[in-house]
């Protein structure tokens, strides 16, 4: 029997998303193009959700990283720019050993500090829109009037600002957790 959306959502938020930091680091260490990391992560999330429709895994962590590994291998094969060695290396990787760095949960103080930093990183106008709308509770119209911009600019800024803040809070753009010395990098296929 297929799992209902509520159950999958609960599992995804409670067990998968807290791994985002580690997962992003894993992808970055094992894929040459750093810019693709977030796209790849997004695809992995979609795969996890699709699987969970049939069965919610018991060991989420192992399932996440195994799925990630297989996805990277598939991407590499499809891209056809890597040598045979890359795929073999990935396949031989002991996923759990790779993630020997333990999850570090931020304390409340650290999370707040992160929130402040996240807010400071926003452009001044986006930050102001967020604070007016969400902390002071002004309507879109009032925010637009206060800042002398259009309502659609307000919506646009709020949208982008929230995405940036969430990205930052989820830790996906954090400093890379240093990986083991034998980090694998995709190599060009020899003609």
């Amino acid at each position, binding site marked *: 029997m297929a799992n209902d*959306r509520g159950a*999958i*959502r609960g599992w*995804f*938020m409670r067990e998968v*998303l807290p791994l985002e930091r580690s997962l992003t680091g894993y992808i970055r260490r094992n894929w040459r193009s750093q810019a693709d990391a*977030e*796209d790849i992560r*997004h*695809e992995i*999330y*979609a*795969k*996890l*959700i*699709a699987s969970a429709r049939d069965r919610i895994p018991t060991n989420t962590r192992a399932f996440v990283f195994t799925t990630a590994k297989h996805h990277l291998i598939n991407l590499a094969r499809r891209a056809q720019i890597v040598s045979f060695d890359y795929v073999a290396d990935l396949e031989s990787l002991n996923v759990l050993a790779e993630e020997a760095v333990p999850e570090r949960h931020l304390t*409340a*103080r650290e*999370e*707040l500090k992160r*929130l*402040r930093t996240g*807010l*400071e990183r926003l452009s001044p106008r986006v930050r102001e829109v967020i*604070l007016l*709308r*969400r*902390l*002071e*509770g*002004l*309507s879109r119209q*009032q925010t637009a009037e206060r800042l002398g911009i259009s309502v659609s600019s307000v*919506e646009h800024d*709020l*949208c*982008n600002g*929230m*995405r940036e*803040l*969430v*990205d930052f*809070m*989820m830790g996906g753009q954090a400093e890379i957790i240093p990986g083991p010395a034998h980090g694998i990098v995709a190599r060009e296929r020899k003609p």
Partner: protein
Amino acid sequence: MSRDSIEKQAAMWLLRREEQTWHEADQAALDAWLDESPEHEAAFWRLEHGQIKLARMAALAAPVRREASQPALPRRRPRRWLPAAAVLAAAMTAAVIELPNTGLFGPRVYTTNIGGREELPLPDGSKVELNTATRLRADVSRTRREIWLDRGEAFFAVAHDPSHPFVVHAGPKTVTVLGTKFSVRRDGEHVEVAVLEGLVRIDNAGAGKTPAQAIVITRGDIAVGSARSTLVEPKSVSKVDDALSWRQGRLKFHETTLAEAAAQFNRYNRTKLVIVDPQAAGTRIGGNFQANNVEDFARLLSNAYGFRVDADGKELKVSSPH
């Protein structure tokens, strides 16, 4: 469809969902969009999760006063930004963090809709209960405890702290306590303070706190004031209880004119009672009613008191039986 555009759509959905105009049809459209692809679900739930985290953290932050005070604007508050009381309560048991005064966070704003009620813990251990149609700003940390009641009514159970007086600014009046239980109601320049427990001091706002002008009231007292005067009603603990029955979602009347009762109900309901003739308006009634059920009250007026009730759109017109 690229990840970027999917995430943009997810963000727009999330923001739209917080608007008060969100209807069932919108929810159906959102569900349909989520059904289209697990990529949509991934993007949406991730942002949703991030928002919840942000809201929880914002609740932990001890708010810091802005340099310039913001004018109080009438606003429509996206309610879902504020975490539910349960989440806030959980967050509040964590250590209270103080942010240096960078002007990043202004006083926290709390609001309720018509007929709404909300209970909120404050970082100092005090508790606030907001009544219907209320807007309140809080600047409460370890070093200061200040509230601005812009409109509506709130009940405060204040944690005892002699070194940091708890101050409520309500229009023309300033209410100061050390640790006590009381309510403040503000309607423009008209302010009412009812005391359940402890000592409450009422000053005129802005006045250099000359003791001679202050009054101190205690349990069973209700003070009613405006810019120039404050009147303390005869002490009555049961009257204070009646005045606070909204905390259980009830309205209690005892020899109350129908005009006054109607005015009370109209605070909690979008359907408004209109008392048509002066005779009806002056009739005294009593009883214990559910605040947000004006239809039941109108039925009772008709059945028990014989009034005539005509439903007319968003109004219930009440007139003397003839």
